């Protein structure tokens, strides 16, 4: 059964179309990895799914409901959660309070303060600290914990390893299977191909807002992926960066 289904999605900023004609589905319990160069439209896609930006056309179906026009906070209540790019903690709240706000939807599930502290021990150490005073990496860990607190059915992770010490990244990646075992579906946006390939059930590659490749890691060759990643030639990569200029 698919948890999320995207049909012909178009989204962008003003005249700029960052995501165009995109369709794919995420199955329940699946770890769906989304890769693509900078500016490919990954974050835009995640923001459209979670509703923090409105789409130009297309449909988003979550657990059999059409949520295309549903307000963002209602989507969260329905079971989607996003760990935003750039962490964005509540800086005047303590770490623990951040986690508690994460539980605002009141959804039932495996995640509570205790289980988060077990998953991310660093967070427990910081729990009484003011979240605004954490180092970048510390913040990232708290942000992940905060998102899990809502016990989502689908969690969207936008470049979570950005700025994290390798050891923390390793811990988080090691935790991903655990998180998933709770019946949670994950969409993971990441630059680090090799690491992604190791954990993903399915991988999709975005290029200039288009889905250019989709499949199981085992079914794809490395060459296929790299080609998809950068387009087929360097020249088209060049135009892509010009495109962002307009």
């Amino acid at each position, binding site marked *: 059964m698919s948890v999320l289904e995207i049909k012909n999605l178009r989204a962008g900023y003003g005249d700029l179309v960052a995501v165009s004609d995109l369709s794919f589905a995420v199955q329940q319990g699946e770890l769906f990895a989304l890769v693509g160069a900078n500016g490919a439209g990954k974050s835009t896609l995640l923001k459209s799914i979670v509703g923090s930006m409105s789409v130009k056309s297309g449909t988003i179906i979550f657990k059999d409901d059409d949520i295309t026009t549903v307000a963002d906070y209602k989507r969260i209540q329905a079971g989607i959660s996003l760990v935003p790019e750039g962490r964005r903690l509540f800086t005047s709240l303590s770490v623990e309070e951040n986690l508690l706000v994460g539980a605002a939807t009141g959804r039932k599930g495996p995640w509570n303060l205790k289980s988060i502290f077990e998953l991310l021990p660093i967070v427990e150490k910081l729990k009484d600290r003011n979240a605004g005073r*954490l180092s*970048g990496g510390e913040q990232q860990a708290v942000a992940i914990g905060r998102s899990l607190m809502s016990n989502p059915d689908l969690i969207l992770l936008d470049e979570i390893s950005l*700025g994290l*010490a*390798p*050891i923390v*990244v390793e811990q988080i990646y090691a935790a991903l299977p655990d998180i998933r075992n709770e019946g949670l579906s994950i969409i993971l946006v990441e*630059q680090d191909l090799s690491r992604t390939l190791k954990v993903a059930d399915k991988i999709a590659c975005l290029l200039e807002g288009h889905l250019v490749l989709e499949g199981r890691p085992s079914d794809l060759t490395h060459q296929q992926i790299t080609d998809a990643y950068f387009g087929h030639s360097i020249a088209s990569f060049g135009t892509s960066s010009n495109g*962002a200029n307009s």
Partner: protein
Amino acid sequence: MSKSYGNLGVLFDVSLSIPIGQAVGIVGPNGAGKTTFLSVINGTEPTSAGSVFFNGTDVTKQGAEERSRSGIGRTFQIPRPFSNLSVFENALAGAAFGGGLRGREAQTAALDALEKSEMMQFANLRAGGLSLLARKRLELARALSTQPKLLLLDEIAGGLTEAECISLIATIKNLKDSGITIVWIEHVVQALVAVVDRLVCLASGTIIQDGIPDEVLKSREVLSVYMGTGI
């Protein structure tokens, strides 16, 4: 030097001496105090104890702007663009003040910095509208525009694709070859070791390792607090 925020100690009696022209990498767990270390060097944050010497001069009492004028440039981990100015004007500010240049000279220096950091295509865009990556490059461009002798870089490779990373490494190598001293914090260790001569590992506010990159990375402390088992 030492640094604390109120009761919270961040850096404890750290001493480090960097010869001119050297490129030093800094790694360490999150919250180790790396960013704080940079802030204390460039004067964004005052030291709590100890002193900072730059080119043999004691700059501990100087503000960030004075240190910038005398040649310390830095990027911010969390970018702080001048959102309402264009990318070019962002760089121009660096050239005109930190670089102490005027008129045409400042403009040329700003363009040069944009080119080096591959931001020329965005020159007329409002910096507030840039994506995260472009903001990070803008950080680099601004730091370069101040004509630094010492360049402090804070996680500028995060989030880059392989290709972009390679080009960034080339850029920084070029800077190093042109005689700029570099201190670079990065969690993308591969990128770091491709450039630096020396690697320092900070953990809990103290230097736990300092030396040849390969050796530092292989040392047991660094493996256990930072690298983990992988790689």
